[in-house]
């Protein structure tokens, strides 16, 4: 189902979904807007009636929110010093072959 098709229904349709139908649509629903299904008023009644679905949505949102924080690495996630040594060595070779006297990678 496309993004638009996933939500192209009257709100009552969502109120009366079965949990299985909800789960089938969930990949598309998370892909719409800010991805916060729990805050979308169209699903409020359904989620209130289906606490298992509400718990699932909340958990998946927590996972996505925490994942976004992983974008900024921590200080202990540096590559080994040998990586730069190898890069510099190869670039020195390339610079020489390109006849660029100003390039001195050390």
């Amino acid at each position, binding site marked *: 189902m496309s993004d638009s098709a996933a939500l192209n229904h009257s709100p009552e349709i969502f109120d009366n979904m079965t949990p299985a139908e909800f789960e089938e649509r969930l*990949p*598309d629903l998370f892909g719409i807007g800010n991805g916060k299904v729990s805050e979308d008023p169209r699903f409020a009644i359904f989620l209130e009636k289906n606490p298992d679905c509400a*718990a699932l949505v909340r958990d*998946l949102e927590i996972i996505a929110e925490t994942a976004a924080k992983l974008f900024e690495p921590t200080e202990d996630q540096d*590559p080994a010093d040998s990586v730069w040594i190898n890069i510099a060595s190869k670039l020195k070779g390339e610079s020489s072959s390109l006849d660029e006297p100003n390039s001195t*990678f050390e």
Partner: protein
Amino acid sequence: MSSMILEAQTGMQTKPNPGLFKRNPPIAGEAEAIERAKEGDPDAFSKLYALHKRRVYTLCLRMLGNVSEAEDMTQEAFLHLFRKLGSFRGESAFSTWLHRLTVNLVLMHLRKKGLNLVSLEETINPSEDDAPKRDFGSRDQQLAGSVDRVTLERAVSSLPPGYRMVFVLHDVEGFEHNEIASMLECSTGNSKSQLHKARLKLRELLRNPEQFAVPASGKEGV
């Protein structure tokens, strides 16, 4: 192929996308270092490496799950950057451009290794055992208000490769489904479906941490 993928693969830039700067704001001194590095200043290139090595390495490590391969790909990414830097025109955030370049190199590397990413669904879909269980699970076991990043890193590294790839690209790196679909040569729907399965599998893992994969020696990543 989206313009952004084309840009990272070929070094050509198309149109600017202001949204890309949201997550990758310019870094102090970066623009000057880029211009100087384009002119062949080795100190400037060294500065670019210092500014971006951690993110590039972490991205490689998360995608590959192996320290030595991640270091090799970090090296390749910066060598490639050196050769392509002249085509960077500042129309997107430099780190976004660099990350795309890195992702494409990693994907090429995986394809060379024989991991066929052309049909994501058929080739790197996990076995039945690895797939998330199709139930809602007990509410009693719901995750706490937050999951700490170390635990999530460990859970991500335990994901099957196909799930891990889409999860890292979308939820960590912030790529859109249409971009991921172009990179992995699959459909947008497939990317959404893989992401959803990845999150379900992570939920399962986080509720049962004993299922985390045990790293083999100190060389396995994250």
